[in-house]
């Protein structure tokens, strides 16, 4: 009992802090709220405050050791939408308003963050390892700050994309940064390490590269087929990985094993 009271006492400041923070947020103390989204935000906040307080009370006795990060996470009421053949690596993170069409693949450790606005990936597109795709609240041009990727788009590893529009049949080399508000037309190849500045436009059927991005050459007639072939190859690889995972996670069985071990040793 002494142990519990000790650990409870040590958690009290945390709980209080969380409570006060939630109350402050709920009362609208932290900054100006955007107009259109107030009712939903407020509902979410109330729910969150109750949930967090309950959780704080429940975990007062100890701490979590299991990683509870999820590849798919709803945010402010919008849940990622995906098809049956989408491969999402277990270490990738897809959050909020994200739509993934058929045969798309999200590779290891990449993050798709659809918080301010939506993200859409067209069919047969892939986002390779450790990419970040995110949105900003508002574009100065007045266009919606969504991220839209067309069909057959391959985003190379380590790339960062913010609020940009990309057409069909595009290869984005590794380590490319595409600034917000950029528009990239169809049939484009971006060299590895390209930096596309904000609000720039790249016309179709061309190869661009460098920092800042500049024109390199025109693409041949067969380039479109090659780009589509590349996207298909990545999709075939993704299928190999897709097969390695069962439809549902088995991690809870591991938790049960741990608990059984505890019981077996007579500690409970």
């Amino acid at each position, binding site marked *: 009992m002494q142990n519990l009271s000790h650990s409870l006492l040590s958690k009290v400041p945390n709980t209080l802090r969380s409570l006060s923070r939630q109350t402050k947020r709920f009362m609208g103390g932290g900054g100006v709220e955007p107009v259109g989204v107030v009712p939903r935000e407020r509902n979410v906040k109330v729910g969150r405050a109750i949930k967090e307080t309950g959780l704080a009370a429940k975990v007062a006795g100890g701490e*979590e050791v*299991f990683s509870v990060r999820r590849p798919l996470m709803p945010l402010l009421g919008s849940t990622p939408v995906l098809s049956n053949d989408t491969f999402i690596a277990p270490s990738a993170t897809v959050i909020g308003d994200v739509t993934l069409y058929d045969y798309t693949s999200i590779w290891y450790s990449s993050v798709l963050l659809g918080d301010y606005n939506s993200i859409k990936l067209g069919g047969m597109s892939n986002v390779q*390892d450790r990419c970040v795709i995110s949105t900003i609240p508002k574009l100065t041009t007045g266009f919606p700050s969504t991220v839209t990727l067309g069909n057959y788009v391959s985003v190379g590893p380590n790339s960062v994309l913010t609020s940009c529009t990309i057409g069909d049949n595009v290869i984005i*080399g590794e380590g490319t940064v595409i600034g917000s508000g950029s528009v990239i037309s169809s049939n484009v190849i971006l060299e590895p*390490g390209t930096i596309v500045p904000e609000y720039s436009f790249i016309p179709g059927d061309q190869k661009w590269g460098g920092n800042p991005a500049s024109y390199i050459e025109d693409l041949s007639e067969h380039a479109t087929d090659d780009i589509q072939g590349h996207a298909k*190859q990545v999709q075939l690889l993704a299928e190999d990985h897709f*097969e390695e995972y069962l439809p549902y996670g088995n991690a809870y069985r591991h938790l049960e094993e*741990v*608990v059984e071990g505890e019981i077996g*040793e007579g500690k409970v």
Partner: protein
Amino acid sequence: MPPPPPGPTAFQFFRHYLGRCIRETGQMFDRVGLRGEAASGSWKSNKATRIMSSSDPSKIDSLNWAAHQEPWLFDTPLSRHRTMMPVFRAGQPRISTDEPTMSVVEGTTPFIAPCSTLVGDVTVHQGASIWYGAVIRGDTHIKKEKIGLDKESDEEVHIGVVIGEGTNVQDNAIISGCPYTGLGVRIGKGVTVGHSASIVGATVGDNVLVGMGSTISAGAVVESGSFLAAGTVVRGGQVVKSGELWAGQPARKLKDLTEKQKKQLFYQADEYVKLSQRHAHTMELGGEEDEEVLRMNGVDVGDVKTIDDGKK
């Protein structure tokens, strides 16, 4: 280049897919069972929750995770990430047992951080270290004729990724075979791959320093004893010669390295071998030296040991 391992046989294919069918069916039954259990309200008697209602509160440790979860246990948000993951067609990550040739490496073990990802045919040699968040993928395949093995057949082989001894792959780095061309990655001994660097389908020699955020594209070759500055982008087909310093985007030669600078290339990798050993020991919870460190930080060592035992 060593010959690539043979692909799976027809029998192995059959066994793999049969096993997969059985596992999926079993999981289906498991889920039905859990649903039934939850509907009848008996999920409260689940072992994990029983610990929560245990009379001795000192036993309520980290396992009370189960208490604030939904009754649908199969919907658990527990992470499915695995550090080393096999891909059926490509093979599985393995740690080489070859005798080390570098003096620093002797008596060490490879350090592989728990949140890094090794997928497919990846070979890690002795004394190498894979740091936090790194992604290494050896799952690509290439036609045999392209690497001059068998010009007649249309068969595809896997060339995976090889990380040489004493090499360190630092945090958030990406090493992967090129998914378009199918080229694998060979990294020599004592190489330092900096933070967030990405090497895709390229060959890197011994004692190279790849700077932070550098990119080496498919088909590029970086020869032994060279230095890539931070943010260098080496395009496919470029060759970085031995003893040179390259920088920029696209990469170009800046100057030749002096004798003193060449020695520093060795120093960096050696230090990382030593540092990785300290991390490797800390990861094995319950070591004598580490218990002291944990106590100093106010962690109850008894709890840590219990969890460790439970996993076995």
